């Protein structure tokens, strides 16, 4: 039982991290109707900026405090993501108002390759580390209930807490504020949104900026776990099944979807893996997503789309 609990918790924590990346997809889709293929590239770009500035700042200024350097690097990386959002709106999105979803998707595909290349030429293409001082050592809990207790990773708990806070803030923003309503309106119909005086350009900058900050947080946490390297972009691919499961338009969906995928991966690996020789973790989520596409294409919490014929 303790082992099951341990696997479950491990899965939940991993799932929270998937959710964080999935959240970026959901934000941009919800607010502009664009499936942003570049989310993975944004995670890499933001993480690279964060890693390099946290390295450069002590060198340039002689600040020794790890915390101070990290905070400064986070702020600078955030500012960079804002500039990126602004440039994307100016150069790409502005010219594609009222265009088809597929056109915008292709545009984000272009942005992906551009950002991957630019990020690496600006910040280098080695493996960098982000050290935000997260405790790496595992702790044992529930020792009085189970013999030997249940092992959990402190780092994962903190990461999960950060993700949860971010999600709560974003949910309130979307549901309760006029700007949130404007974002949802833009997602549904550009022209109608303009006709009621919603400034499309500003909305797009806001969304991409928020998605950039989410990418930064995701990049920071993933980066501190795995190191900042090109393979971070594939984290985005791991988040794809999460959005399919949770529904592209639902913030809570991204979270629940992430948790289900995280738990599903770990449990299936541990309990089903031995029968098929292991390695389930890698493809389990995609199969789950496929099943969902067959039976519930809008995901768990997505808006049901009824097309009139």
């Amino acid at each position, binding site marked *: 039982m303790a082992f099951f609990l341990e696997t479950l918790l491990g899965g939940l924590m991993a799932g929270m991290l998937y959710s964080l990346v999935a959240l970026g997809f959901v934000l941009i889709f919800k607010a502009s109707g664009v499936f942003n293929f570049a989310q993975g590239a944004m995670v890499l770009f933001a993480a690279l900026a964060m890693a390099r500035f946290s390295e450069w700042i002590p060198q340039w200024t002689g600040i020794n405090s790890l915390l101070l350097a990290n905070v400064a690097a986070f702020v600078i990386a955030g500012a960079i993501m804002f500039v990126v959002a602004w440039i994307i709106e100016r150069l790409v999105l502005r010219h594609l108002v009222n265009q088809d979803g597929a056109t915008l998707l292709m545009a984000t595909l272009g942005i992906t390759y551009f950002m991957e290349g630019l990020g690496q030429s600006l910040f280098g293409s080695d493996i960098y580390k982000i050290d935000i001082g997260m405790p790496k050592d595992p702790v044992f809990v529930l020792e009085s209930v189970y013999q030997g207790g249940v092992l959990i990773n402190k780092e994962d708990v903190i990461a999960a807490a950060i993700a949860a806070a971010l999600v709560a803030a974003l949910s309130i923003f979307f549901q*309760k*504020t006029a*700007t949130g309503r404007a974002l*949802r309106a833009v997602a*549904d119909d550009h022209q109608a949104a*303009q006709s*009621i*005086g919603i400034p499309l350009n500003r909305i797009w900058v806001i969304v991409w900026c928020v998605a950039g900050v989410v990418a930064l947080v995701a990049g920071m946490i993933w980066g501190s776990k795995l190191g900042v390297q090109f393979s971070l972009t594939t984290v985005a691919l791991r988040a794809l099944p999460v959005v399919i499961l949770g529904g592209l*338009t639902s913030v809570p969906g991204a979270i629940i979807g992430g948790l289900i995928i995280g738990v599903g991966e770990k449990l299936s690996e541990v309990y089903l893996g031995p029968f098929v020789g292991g390695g389930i973790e890698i493809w389990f989520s995609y199969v789950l997503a496929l099943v969902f596409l067959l039976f519930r294409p809008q995901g768990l919490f997505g808006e049901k789309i009824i097309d009139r014929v």
Partner: protein
Amino acid sequence: MTKKIGDVILDVNNISLSFGGVKALSDISFNVKEHEIRAIIGPNGAGKSSMLNCINGVYAPQQGSITFRGQTFKHMNSHQVAVMGVARTFQNLALFKGMSVLDNIMSGRNLKIKSNLLLQALRIGPAEKEEIMHREAVEKIIDFLEIQAYRKTPVGQLPYGLQKRVDLGRALAMEPQVLLLDEPMAGMNVEEKQDMCRFVLDVNDEFGTTVVLIEHDMGVVMDISDRVVVLDYGKKIGDGTPDEVRNNEDVIRAYLGTSH
């Protein structure tokens, strides 16, 4: 009905618009007076919607200008037009399908919400009072359009006639001075058309809103409008009261002649 028609509020001067080699509008001029119901009619492809889209800032005409409340523009910008108090509805419904009726109409108040984002999120202080005030205004519109029962329904699930009402409701929520209606009765049955006519007349009557209306149904146009502009192949062929237009030979030839 004694209605007070005011001065010219919207003046369209020599507007020409073409898409590549296709001339959609050539040299169109007309004006709209405050508090009147002004109709734009014409056969399919006459340029009616293009005209409306020029006023609304969706299209930028190559020539001419539009004067709104004394300010002259070469071309309008959608956002600016909304700020100045012009609202519109769409020929092919352009509602926010995933959102409820309430949220759709509430989104029309977007420009009016002034309080700070953070206060809104936390629902405290002046933000709460403001939200309640806007909500009350929206409830009045919902009552007016008789869609109380569908408040929480996602608009995508409503029948067509009701969606048209929500579209009107969203425009009304902006408390516009000028309301542009792009074929508000298209595709409706007789009963729905009567309802919609009643709403348009009431809006005009109660709030004094100036209405510019594109419509195919000649009966409707002649009944409710004060003055009518007739377009054909992008040119203006008639302008005047319904009776004048009805007796205009060009109009009979181009429009009525073909449909009778």
